[in-house]
C-alpha cells in the first residue's frame, strides 16, 4: 500500500493522482471502507494550498447534495442540504472529496462493527478491526486512497482508529473546528478531527479548516494556526518542555507491548532534552464511566429528533406515537438503542442527581485540576489505547470491554483539550501501537509542532 501525502499530491500530475486514488479504492473494496465514492475530478485551475489533494469524509460530515447516513438505516437516504463549514473551507482551498467512509452508527463504537452497512476491516490485517468510530476514515488513508481523512472525535474516535491503522490522528481544542455540518452525537464533546500520514499534513489542513463560524458560536479563529507556513523543525526545541508521564497505570490494565513502547518513547524524548516528570492524572480511571454518563445523556436528547417526522426514515403506524416508535425501533441499531436508553436512565428525574448532575460536577472539577496541571507542565504523554487492535467480533458482545478502549482518549474530550496520536512501533504480533500527546486548552499549534519534532526524531 503506497500512502499519499499532501506533498506527493502537489508534486504530481493530476492524472497520476486520479489513477492512484482509483486504484487504491478498487484494490480495497473487500475492506468495506467507503459507503460511496464520488469519482475524482481534478481541477485544471489552481484554487489554493490543497489543490487537487484527495480527502475522505466520515459519513456524519455533510457534503451538499450527497448522502450522509451516519452509518445508520435511519438516515440511509438523507441528502445533505448544505456542506459542513470545514468542508466548505477545504473545497475553497482546492481539496477533492473522494467519498464518504464507513463508521459506527452515529459515531457510537470503537471498532466500526456497529455500522448498519457492515464492519470495516483493518487494512494492515483484515482479521482485525480498524478502530472506531472513524474506522473507515483511518482505513481510507491507510490504503492510500486519500492524503487525509476527516473524522469526528467524541471520546477518541479519531485517535483510536488512527493508532490502530498506524497513522497520526488529531483532535483539536473544542471550538478550533466549527461543528456546523457535523451530525450531533454529544454536542459538548464532539469535534471534527484529522487523520493523516504525518504531522505536517495535519498542520496544513488545520490551518485551512480553522476559523470563526457565525453559525457555531463555540468556534473561534486561532490566528497562530491560520497563519502558519512550512514548519522549520530546526527551530523547534524539545529542551525546556515539560512532559507529564505515568510511572504505572494501575488500576488500568495496559498490555505489556504498549507499556514497553511507552517506556521506550519516554527514554527517547528524555534523551532529546524534554523534561519528563511523573504525574498522576486525576480522575483518569473514572473517565470512561463519566464519559458514558455525559455522552449518553446528550445523545438521548440529540437523537430524539429522529422520530420519522422531519429527518430520514419513516415507518408507518396507526397513530403518531406508534409511527414514532416503529421508526425509532427499526431505524436504530443495537448499540444506539443501548446508549439512548442509558442516557434516558441517567437523566430520568429520580436518577439525574446521582448520575448526570454529579458527572457534570466532576467534569467541572476535572477541568480545574487539569488547568492547574497545564500551568506547570506543557504536555501529558499517554498510551492512545490500552491494547493493540483486537480481532473482529472479539468485543462486540461485551459493551463494557468495548467502552474501555476509550480510557486514555475520553479525557481530552471531557476537558476540551487538544491531543494527537503518533505511530510508535508495533506489538510482538506485528500490530501497530499509538502513543498520545495531550496539551492544554488552546495549545494546538504548539502541541502539533512538538509532536512533529518528536515524530521526526523517531524516524
Amino acid at each position: 500500500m503506497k500512502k499519499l501525502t499532501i506533498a506527493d499530491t502537489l508534486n504530481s500530475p493530476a492524472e497520476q493522482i486520479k489513477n492512484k486514488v482509483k486504484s487504491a479504492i478498487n484494490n480495497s473494496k473487500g475492506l468495506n471502507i467507503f459507503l460511496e465514492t464520488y469519482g475524482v475530478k481534478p481541477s485544471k485551475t489552481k484554487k489554493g494550498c490543497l489543490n487537487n489533494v484527495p480527502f475522505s469524509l466520515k459519513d456524519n460530515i455533510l457534503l451538499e447534495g450527497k448522502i450522509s447516513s451516519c452509518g445508520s438505516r435511519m438516515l440511509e437516504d438523507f441528502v445533505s442540504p448544505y456542506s459542513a463549514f470545514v468542508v466548505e473551507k477545504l473545497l475553497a482551498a482546492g481539496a477533492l472529496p473522494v467519498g464518504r467512509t464507513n463508521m459506527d452508527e452515529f459515531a457510537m463504537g470503537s471498532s466500526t462493527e456497529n455500522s448498519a452497512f457492515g464492519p470495516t476491516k483493518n487494512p494492515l490485517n483484515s482479521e482485525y478491526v480498524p478502530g472506531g468510530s472513524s474506522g473507515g476514515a483511518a482505513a481510507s488513508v491507510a490504503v492510500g486512497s486519500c492524503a487525509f481523512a476527516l473524522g469526528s472525535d467524541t471520546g477518541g474516535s479519531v485517535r483510536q482508529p488512527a493508532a490502530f491503522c498506524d497513522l497520526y490522528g488529531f483532535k483539536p481544542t473544542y471550538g478550533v473546528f466549527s461543528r456546523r455540518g457535523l451530525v450531533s452525537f454529544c454536542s459538548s464533546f464532539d469535534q471534527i478531527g484529522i487523520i493523516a500520514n504525518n504531522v505536517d499534513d495535519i498542520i496544513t489542513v488545520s490551518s485551512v479548516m480553522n476559523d470563526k463560524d457565525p453559525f457555531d458560536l463555540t468556534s473561534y479563529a486561532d490566528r497562530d494556526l491560520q497563519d502558519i507556513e512550512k514548519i522549520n523543525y530546526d527551530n523547534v526545541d524539545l529542551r525546556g518542555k515539560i512532559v507529564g508521564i505515568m510511572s504505572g497505570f494501575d488500576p488500568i490494565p495496559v498490555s505489556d507491548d504498549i507499556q514497553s513502547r511507552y517506556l521506550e518513547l519516554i527514554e527517547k524524548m528524555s534523551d532529546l532534552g524534554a523534561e519528563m516528570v511523573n504525574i498522576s492524572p486525576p480522575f483518569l480511571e473514572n473517565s470512561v464511566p463519566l464519559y458514558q454518563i455525559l455522552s449518553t445523556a446528550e445523545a438521548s436528547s440529540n437523537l430524539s429528533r429522529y422520530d420519522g417526522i422531519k429527518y430520514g426514515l419513516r415507518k408507518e403506524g396507526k397513530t403518531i406515537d406508534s409511527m414514532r416508535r416503529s421508526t425509532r425501533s427499526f431505524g436504530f441499531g443495537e448499540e444506539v438503542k443501548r446508549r439512548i436508553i442509558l442516557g434516558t436512565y441517567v437523566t430520568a428525574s429520580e436518577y439525574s442527581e446521582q448520575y448526570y448532575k454529579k458527572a457534570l460536577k466532576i467534569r467541572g472539577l476535572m477541568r480545574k485540576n487539569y488547568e492547574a496541571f497545564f500551568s506547570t507542565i506543557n504536555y501529558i504523554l499517554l498510551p492512545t489505547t490500552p491494547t493493540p487492535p483486537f480481532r473482529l467480533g472479539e468485543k462486540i458482545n461485551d459493551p463494557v470491554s468495548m467502552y474501555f478502549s476509550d480510557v486514555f482518549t475520553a479525557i481530552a474530550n471531557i476537558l476540551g483539550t487538544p491531543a494527537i496520536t503518533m505511530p510508535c512501533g508495533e506489538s510482538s504480533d506485528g500490530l501497530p501501537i499509538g502513543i498520545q500527546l495531550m496539551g492544554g486548552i488552546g495549545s494546538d499549534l504548539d502541541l502539533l509542532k512538538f509532536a512533529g519534532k518528536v515524530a521526526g526524531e523517531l524516524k
Partner: protein
Amino acid sequence: MKNSKITKKEIRRILDLAKITVQPEELTKLTEDLGDIIVEIDKIKNLSEDFLVGNVIFQQVNNQFSLTSKKMTYSLERIKENFPVTEGGDPVIPPIKGDK
C-alpha cells in the same frame, strides 16, 4: 439470567420514555448489558463528596526540576476577535444560507 442492577420492568419504562420498542429476546440482552454498564457508572455515583472536594486542590506534580511556569492565556485582542458581531449591543444573527 444473572442478577442485574436493573430490572426488565424498569427497562420497559425507560424504553417507553425513549419511544423505542424491542422484542422479548432483545429486552433480555438489553437488561443484562445495561446491568453491567450501570455497575461501571455507579463508580461515579459512589464517589464521595469528600473525594470531590479534596480533588479541587490541584495535585502537585513531581516537577521539582522545572524552572519555568507556563500558563495559557488569551489576549484581549484575541478574545475580541472571536466575539460575535454586534449591532447596537445585540449579536447579529447571520442570514440562513439560501434565504433571500
